[in-house]
């Protein structure tokens, strides 16, 4: 009944109430979208033409006779294009011309299935419970002037408690790492202090001093184990601080990265070695001598598990465990590379160098997008799930927005000054929090909009119980991706291998070192008896072998010589004619 009122109102008070329109109903809006069916349009046109009938009908409806109404939302609910695009995987496959019936059917049906899956996934977006955080300044106010204390005051108590400082001035500076679920924090001081904390409940899991220099710390696949790169060897501890392993194959490690889907711990050492440790079986998978000197700049591409290393000569090299040579080597800076980071989609790489520049690269095309000059240069870089870039310049952390893309970097979104040199930067996954390790301890800083608001509980669940964690661990181990599958394109496996026979043969020859299809050369038998020695027989065979081919060759050679002869004769004639110089005509 409520739907009828506006129609009646508009017909009576059109002039008077021109400005004040009746409240918009949600179904009216859907009628205006272009998703409308053509029959509906015709129907409405007819309605507009004879308003009297409309009135009659509305009166009828008022009387409650015609309660059955047309569906106000005809057809499927429309899905925004952008949302659909998010779930698009690769390009749509077109049916090739001249395809057979079976192939055609297979392609069409699989395309229909993937389209359905895409639509359903896009529809599911509506049900996601959380929205991303944000920070907006008042008019003429820069958000980077807002202090952390003000933010902590303004937000609710739980969020406010996410800004805190740990004053650890004795054993710093600190490196840090957050676990994959974002609940657990691991800090390691240069002078041997290692602690792991459930940082949300501020619950200390373990704390110890390894009495040695600590270069880097890293969580392994769960919060039950972590790796510490100490002065000489690599050590694995459990969450109680118990030493599980001392891996003596890995020495002088400076930086580490953990590849969660491959269960690989990649380490970069002072001796220039890049090594991979399979933590599920405890075996060294690959050791690559990079021949690039000391490796203290390292990052992983979370999209394809390729390791990025930065070098003192300004190059960045990309590595996989399957190749002794770098996959790609690109010159990024005029001076040494100080830090680099890759975004979660594997599209952009951000680097900073001693030339005090901050550069953004598109690593699908290996092209620079834009660069900017930071007065102090960035010593640490980190990208959040939401695409915010944080850069440590001296004792200040700056957070930039909208760095990934073609637009140049503007002024920072947030900034925070700390005491002491910054040694480590990491965003906490699924939280609006940036962890900073520095000379005076550790600082957890609130950065609204940094984290992914909605996690997938089957992949990483911050609220998981121990039972769920155990189950997840088993499943993750079952689908551990083999290190052989690491390459620049992780989707390679789903594509058709169109290598030709020749190409494949060439690769095989390269891999084997010899040609398996080549006929082995004839070796005469060392037969001493008889006049018809093996060598003589072979010679005789050679004389009559390939006779048909020989005939052909002979013929073609003959033809060619004849042709050459003719041409020569022709050119000779020309020469005879052409030998006359221009002055000859004056000769008598």
């Amino acid at each position: 009944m409520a739907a009828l009122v506006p129609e009646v109102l508009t017909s009576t008070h059109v002039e008077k109430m021109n400005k004040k329109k009746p409240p918009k109903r949600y179904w009216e809006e859907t009628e205006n979208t272009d998703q409308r069916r053509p029959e509906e349009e015709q129907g409405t046109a007819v309605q507009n033409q004879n308003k009297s009938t409309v009135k009659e009908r509305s009166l009828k409806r008022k009387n409650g006779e015609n309660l059955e109404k047309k569906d106000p939302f005809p057809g499927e609910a429309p899905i925004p294009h952008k949302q659909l695009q998010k779930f698009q995987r690769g390009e749509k496959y077109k049916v090739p011309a001249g395809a057979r019936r079976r192939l055609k059917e297979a392609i069409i049906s699989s395309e229909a299935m993937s389209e359905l899956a895409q639509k359903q996934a896009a529809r599911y977006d509506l049900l996601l419970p959380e929205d991303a955080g944000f920070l907006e300044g008042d008019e003429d106010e820069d958000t980077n002037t807002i202090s952390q204390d003000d933010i902590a005051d303004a937000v609710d108590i739980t969020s406010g408690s996410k800004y805190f400082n740990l004053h650890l001035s004795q054993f710093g500076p600190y490196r840090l790492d957050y676990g994959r679920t974002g609940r657990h924090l691991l800090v390691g001081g240069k002078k041997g202090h290692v602690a792991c904390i459930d940082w949300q409940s501020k619950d200390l899991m373990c704390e110890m001093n390894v009495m040695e220099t600590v270069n880097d710390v890293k969580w392994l696949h769960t919060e039950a184990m972590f790796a510490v790169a100490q002065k000489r060897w690599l050590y694995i501890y459990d969450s109680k601080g118990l030493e599980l392993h001392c891996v003596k194959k890995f020495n002088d490690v400076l930086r580490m990265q953990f590849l969660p889907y491959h269960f690989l711990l990649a380490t970069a050492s002072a001796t220039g070695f890049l090594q991979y440790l399979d933590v599920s079986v405890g075996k060294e998978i690959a050791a690559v001598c990079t021949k690039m000197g000391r490796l203290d700049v390292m990052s992983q591409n979370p999209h394809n598990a390729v390791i990025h290393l930065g070098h003192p000569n300004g190059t960045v090299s990309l590595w996989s465990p399957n190749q002794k040579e770098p996959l790609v080597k690109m010159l990024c800076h005029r001076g040494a590379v100080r830090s680099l980071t890759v975004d979660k989609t594997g599209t952009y790489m951000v680097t900073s160098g001693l030339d005090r520049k901050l550069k953004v690269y598109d690593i699908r095309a290996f092209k620079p997008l834009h660069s900017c000059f930071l007065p102090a240069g960035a010593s640490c870089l980190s990208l959040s799930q939401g695409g915010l870039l944080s850069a440590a310049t001296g004792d200040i952390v700056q957070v930039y927005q909208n760095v990934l893309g073609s637009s140049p970097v503007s002024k920072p979104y947030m900034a925070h000054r700390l005491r002491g040199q910054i040694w480590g930067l990491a965003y906490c996954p699924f939280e609006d929090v940036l962890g900073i390790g520095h000379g005076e301890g550790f600082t957890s800083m609130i950065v609204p909009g940094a984290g992914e608001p909605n996690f997938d509980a089957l992949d990483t669940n911050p609220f998981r119980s121990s039972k769920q964690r155990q189950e997840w661990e088993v499943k993750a181990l079952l689908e551990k991706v083999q290190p052989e599958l690491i390459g620049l394109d992780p989707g390679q496996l789903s594509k058709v291998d169109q290598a030709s026979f020749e190409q494949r043969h060439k690769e095989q020859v390269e891999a084997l070192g010899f040609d398996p299809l080549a006929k082995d050369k004839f070796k005469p038998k060392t037969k001493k008896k008889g006049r018809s020695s093996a060598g003589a027989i072979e010679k005789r065979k050679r004389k009559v072998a390939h006779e048909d081919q020989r005939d052909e060759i002979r013929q073609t050679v003959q033809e060619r010589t004849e042709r050459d002869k003719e041409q020569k004769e022709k050119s000779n004639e020309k020469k005879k004619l052409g030998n006359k110089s221009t002055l000859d005509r004056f000769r008598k």
Partner: protein
Amino acid sequence: HQSAYESDNIKVLCRNPDDYVRETTRDIQRVPRNYDPTLHPFEVPREYTRALNATKLERVFAKPFVASLDGHRDGISCITKHAKSLSTVISGACDGEVKLWNLPRQECLRTVQAHEGFVRGICSRFCGTSFFTVGDDKTIKQWNLEAPGYGVREEPINTILGKAVFTGIDHHQRESTFVTCGQTVDIWDEQRSSPIRSFSWGVDSFSCVRYNPVETELLASCASDRSIVLYDTRESAPLRKVIMQLRSNTLCWNPMEAYYFTCANEDYNLYTYDIRHLDVPVTVHMDHVSAVLDVDYSPTGREFVSASFDKTIRIFPKDKGHSREVYHTKRMQHVICVRWSADNKYVLSGSDEMNIRLWKANASEKLGLLSTREKAAAHYNKKLIEKFQHHPQVRRIARHRHLPGDILKQKREQREMKEARRRREQNVRKHSKPGSVPLLTEKEKHVAAVVE
């Protein structure tokens, strides 16, 4: 002091644990999902790994043998399914004994000494109340499926004495007529003691006769002169016959596509024919290394099972040239007869060494009730294997079947022989007048003639 901005200018992610953690331990865990592809990297490699695992597990769980029914005192010569009951099977042995089996309990219900000499054929009546047997003693006997009362002698309901030995029998789908074969193909009425009609086409003996389950008036029979003859019971003369290079032992109609039948041939192959085009078989199914003795279609008509003298049974997709599965055990000797159960889940094989074996039609299938999650997982794994079936690792594992040493040896030997034959033919063709040695496809090679 006053903060520099209002709190509606700022929002920080803050999750309420109540929304994510279950309320009580009796509740199920909350699992919020987010299908954003950027949160799920390595989609393809992970799926591939899953597919590889599924393939491996399928092979690990491939334990097709379910049970062995022993009790016969001579080799099994024929098996038949009950027309109505899934759990009942009737089998006949070479000593004239017929046994009724209960499959779920794996026990013999009843034993009848039906004939002197071989029981050549058994068929169940369409209503499921009685069954017919034929034997070497030139008789057709009709038996009641109900066991006689205590102390009452096992007697057939009806006995017909024929003129010659009968080698096979089949019953009509709806009417009270049945067909036997021997020296002729005879059609009988249940009420009469002499055949209504007899067919013969210059043939001395037939080994098998089958009614078409869909076109119920259509008959096909295998004759000892290497031919397969088709009949229409409404007509007085046979329809047509196809003569092959070697004799066919048995044949089976496709229960879903009425115009297809498959015959088991002495030349180690099976041939699927379309009765509309008998001059060339639709598919040649190769893989056995000895004569094929029996064949039976699954009730879905998509696959059939074959029994061979090489001590194996194989399952073929109806349109594929090679088998998808091979079953064998150390103790199983020459397999004489085979049947696919009516629920499409099991295969029964009767062999020389007096045992009837029950196999799963799908070797790695889990038997019994499945929970919804188990079902979903099985479906998912099946789809994964299908998706990655062409990847070399997956294909290698999925295709591998263990074969007994002597069969493997014979297989290799035959491949070599085939290659030698091909080479020889090529050489002959090379050195003879062009066109005088025609290039024949594998399908064309085995048909000698079609007679209308």
